[in-house]
């Protein structure tokens, strides 16, 4: 099969990251923001895999496992925080948490 060019792989990773970032900026619902953050994390992981395959090192795969582990921990903490926000503000609209205004 054809070798996948590293530039194309990184371009894909970059595009995925940008999509995730735009999603975080645009979505108002906190859970969707969290999902978009996950997309960004996965994009970063894809970048690592592509680089690891280019240099034929296992380091890329190792980094991806780290990222996955970190993502899992982060999601659990994030969901706990979302539960708290919902408990306080009775809504999942992130714009409602604006008590730091001014």
């Amino acid at each position, binding site marked *: 099969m054809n070798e996948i060019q590293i530039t194309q792989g990184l371009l894909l990773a970059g595009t995925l990251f940008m999509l995730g970032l735009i999603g975080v*900026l645009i979505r108002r619902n906190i859970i969707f923001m969290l999902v978009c953050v996950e997309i960004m994390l996965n994009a970063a992981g894809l970048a690592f895999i592509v680089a690891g395959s280019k240099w034929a090192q296992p380091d890329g795969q190792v980094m991806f496992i780290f990222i996955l582990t970190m993502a899992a921990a982060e999601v659990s903490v994030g969901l706990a925080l979302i539960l708290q926000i919902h408990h306080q503000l009775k809504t999942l609209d*992130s714009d409602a*948490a604006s008590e730091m*205004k001014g």
Partner: protein
Amino acid sequence: MNLLWLIPTLPFIGAFVLVLFGSRLSKTMVPLIGAGSVGLSALVTLLVGVDFISSSSPSFDYVAWQWLDVAGLSSAFAFHLDALSLIFIFVITFVGFLIHIYSAEFMVDDDGYPRFFAYLNLFVCSMLILVLANNLVLMYLGWEGVGLCSYLLIGFWYGEEKNGYAARKAFIVTRVGDTAMAFGLFMLFQNFHTLNIQEIAAKAPQLFSVGSDTVLIIALLLLGGAVGKSAQLPLQTWLPDAMAGPSPVSALIHAATMVTAGVYLIARTHVIFELAPVALMVVGIIGAATLVVAGFAALTQFDLKRVLAYSTISQIGYMFLALGVGAWSAAIFHFMIHAFFKALLFLSAGAVIMALHHEHDMFKMGGLKKKLPVIYWTFLIGASSLAALPLITGGFYSKDQILWLTLSGENGNIWFFLVALLGAFVTSIYTFRMVYLTFFGKEKTHVHHVPGKLINTPLIILAGLSTLAGFIELPHNFFHLTVFSDFLKPVLPSIAVQEGFESIEYMVQMIAAGVSVSGVYVAYIFYIVKPELSDQLKSSAADLHQFWFSGWGFDRLYNFLFVRPFVYLSSINKSDVVDQLYAGLVALAEFFHKIFSFTQSGVLRWYIMGIVIGGILLLTLGLIS
């Protein structure tokens, strides 16, 4: 003589103890410490004085510690005892002690009893330092110390606004003089590289010739300081208002000691003044002018203490006049006698005022001769000394010596003599006007409270001193006793009498005696025999009366020249130009704050956007560079 350091230290310890523990001590303990410290100081003065007189040395120095040693100025906390300072410390401690005893009874009902004695003790300490200092820096310390204590004591009853006003006026007016003196000290240091008085006295004739400009300026600046402290023209306006303080304060500070600090300064630095004859002439002119201005002002006052205040200004004018013609020891002699009788007059005036329950107006007094006999007789003796009644009073011998030397001395002239004679006449009139109005005639205010032993005893002692102390210096043609001027000879140069004048000495004495007695008679006519005459005179010359009453309009003049422009400038500057700079900084900060607080919207996505933008910027910078 090694106990010299104790003399200023004992009152200082008294002040220190009273400041720290005064409120906890009993009403008998406070005057015991207050008067006792000055009394011990007087005792040590006596011992030191006996030791000094019996020894043959003309002076004695005691160095306590090295105080300053910077950039060539080396001054120590050192005391210099010689005939001049011995006379001053004798007067300060003895008269001070008597006044402290008097205050023990006079101020006993006051809430600030310990505070009063603390301030008085601090004053005595500062005055002693002033007089004993062997360098001008230490003297300036004492100078400022007495100014401070004068402020504290004039405004002692600070609850009343006018007392605070009088205290501030005294402090500010003397400050003007003190600044001139400071400039004089700067110039002295610049020219002599030392401020040690004896060293300056030795170097001055070598460095400067008679009539040189530098010495003239220095002398005039020192004179400025002396004029401020001694309430002479043009800085005399503070003393009449300073009568707002308690009577013992008026007696100690504004009669016997602080106001004579100027006389002491000029006598101490006489070498400088002798090198600048123009300055000495100015001293004489100021003295002559002041004694006339104050004399006429005293003639119109109705407040008993204000008459005495103007009288003090006038008598110090006599001392300045004596210094101006070069009669140094005559001026010091008059200082000593004046301290006795003026303190006596102020203390008895205070006793009268206290007995009449704080009535100050002489026209509301009267008939006190029988009710307050001790005070009457002591006041009469003091008043006779002030008016210089011939032969029997101390004042006659001191004032007569000044009158004689203004005419016949080396630098004397007829105009000084005539002015001094006029002043003596006016002095006699206003003095006995005071006596007749207060003690004779009908009793207009009743006596509430007869003073006790602690008030009467100092009065009697001072009356004795006013009379007897004059006999140590008798004129040339009248037993020729010169104990006092001989004592001062090592320190102050003596004055020679001009040719051909010795023969008219009798005539001058007769004239002086006649003038003072006729003043008594004039006052008798105007206030006892025909009181309507004085009322007629007052109403027919009402404007002149008002002019003299206001102290020759100096307060109005200074109000117009200095106070009004200053108040006007401060009202323009009400929002404070310099403060606007800082207010501007605050406004700028607030402006930027308003702008930047817009970025704190509290919306989460706004902050994420901020991070993203920052990240893009950093990447761009990283790619460019």
